[in-house]
């Protein structure tokens, strides 16, 4: 950097900083407000500092049964994460060769990403209603419903997380060197050994990224859950329900708790990715480091 930076750098740097402030500022405001004193209201100034509202959430004396919704969201998020990782990696491997229906799968994924969520959600709810009606008419009159967290709800979330997983896999294999696999094969590795000991370790950091997307997108999902989740609510749905009725800071406390989970997952995932990358850099290749 011998020559000074151009003026446009400083203008855009200020613009960027303003954007970041715009992104984070309001969120930080509610995190601070969730530590309002017991007499505090929905806005600044702070009326003392306490963990009153957060504690209230966990006592279950608040408006929603936080514990149950929390466990449901967590369970769904973890299942969505696992399914997203496994199916994305498998499909990503498939896309490295030509196969029939390749473009059907690709366009399904893209369409699933951009068709408005409310339409997908409505469609899933209609599908399950019709299945219910069929079961009631032909097999069991007392049948309640097949809709639920781990049927229609899980499906709805997967239509949102799988496209992201697949696109990340494309990005991974765009810069993957197939010669590494050939080398493994030449050395006598079985296909599974090649995958397990060569491909997987290399793509692992990005696979963890897919897991991060899978969990966080599910954990915070709202639009697709809205019609398709069945009788019970996830945590974001409860939170949305609160926005119209609540007049004290427990809504912020709930927001802070949900965010805390998101941030924990993000930190864990990014930390793991960082460690893996470092290990790869340290142990990866000895090419060009002189004769062994």
């Amino acid at each position: 950097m011998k020559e000074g930076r151009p003026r446009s750098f400083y203008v855009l740097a200020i613009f960027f900083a303003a954007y970041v402030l715009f992104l984070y500022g309001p969120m930080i405001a509610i995190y601070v407000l969730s530590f309002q004193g017991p007499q505090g209201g929905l806005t600044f100034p702070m009326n003392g500092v306490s963990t009153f509202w957060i504690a209230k959430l966990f006592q279950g004396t608040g408006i929603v049964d936080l514990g149950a919704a929390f466990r449901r969201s967590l369970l769904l998020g973890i299942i969505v994460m696992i399914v997203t990782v496994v199916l994305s990696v498998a499909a990503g491997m498939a896309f490295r060769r030509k196969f029939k229906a390749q473009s059907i799968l690709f366009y399904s994924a893209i369409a699933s990403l951009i068709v408005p969520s409310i339409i997908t959600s409505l469609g899933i709810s209609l599908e399950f209603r019709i299945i219910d009606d069929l079961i009631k008419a032909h097999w069991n009159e007392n049948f309640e419903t097949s809709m639920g967290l781990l049927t229609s709800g899980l499906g709805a979330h997967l239509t949102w997380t799988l496209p992201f997983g697949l696109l990340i896999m494309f990005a991974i294999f765009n810069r993957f060197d197939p010669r590494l696999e050939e080398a493994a094969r030449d050395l006598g590795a079985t296909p599974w050994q090649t995958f397990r000991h060569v491909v997987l370790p290399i793509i692992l950091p990005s696979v963890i990224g897919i897991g991060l997307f899978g969990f966080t997108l599910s954990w915070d999902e709202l639009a697709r859950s809205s019609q398709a989740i069945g009788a019970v609510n996830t945590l974001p749905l409860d939170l949305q329900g609160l926005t119209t009725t609540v007049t004290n800071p427990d809504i912020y406390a709930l927001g802070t708790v949900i965010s805390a989970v998101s941030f924990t997952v993000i930190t864990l995932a990014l930390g793991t990715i960082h460690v893996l990358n470092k290990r790869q850099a340290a142990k990866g290749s000895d090419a060009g480091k002189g004769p062994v």
Partner: protein
Amino acid sequence: MSEEVLQQATPGLLPGAGTARAAKPTRLSPSFISWLQAGPMMLVFLAFFLIPLVFVVIVSFWDYNEYQLLPALSGRGYTDTFEGCIAQLPDLCTIGKTYVMTLKLCFMVWAITLFIGFWVAYFLAFHVKSKTWQMGLSLLCTIPFWTSNVIRMIAWIPLLGRNGLVNSGLIKTGLINHPLEWLLFSEFSVVLALVHLFTFFMVVPIFNSMVRIDKSLIEAAYDAGASGFQTLVNVIIPLAKPGIVIGSIFVITIVMGDFITIGVMGGQQIAAAGKIIETRVNALQFPAAAANAVILLAITFLIITMMSRIVDIKKEL
């Protein structure tokens, strides 16, 4: 199950290379393996996306009464939706007004996210030279995307509310005497929240297009005597166009179908395309909801086709 699938991931093993396995010649054909690998994902999309879409179309032509679906062919879902559209001419009917409102919100959000997204991506791609900084700053923009949208919406309440920071600040400085009412639960707050939530979808594809631009092209333009503005208009924008189009498709389709942000930030008072569907579902008028979904899908599809004429999406990923 996936282990078995992946076990067959790399076929074409040299004969005799894996001695243990060569004894059992259970070689699967490559196309069968591809099916095993891609099949599960295809099934999920089939069961939870493609078939549901078909049901939306079918149910939109069904009849209904106060409390249930009647599987008989009927155009009632559509006629109810367009009720009064001809009678009230030249005034717009409800659905017409709703779509005008939705498109208006859509256009405003699109224009603002494009402006912010373009310059944020430009800064990251061209002004941040070190890879570490580039990664760190991109991550800074991505982290809010991994947190809850509802929280990012309600986060505006303490700022924009009647007694919020903005109003009390303005009153203290003497600029206004009464709190501004249009700051929250208004079109303004809806657009603000949508921009806040979805600029990310603009930044990522534009940034991806920009980092792929060969820096020597920009130097060449500079050497040939182009001004910074000329380089921007004649070199950078055309080369970043795929990212701009993909980002625009994302933002437009999200806003077209949005009902949550418009609901929460509009104080449930603003009608929009997605909100009609929600309202109809809540009234258990499924065929009418489905008819509205079909209309929304058609309009969204039209917009995407128009935009994808400009770039080949598949080539850009």
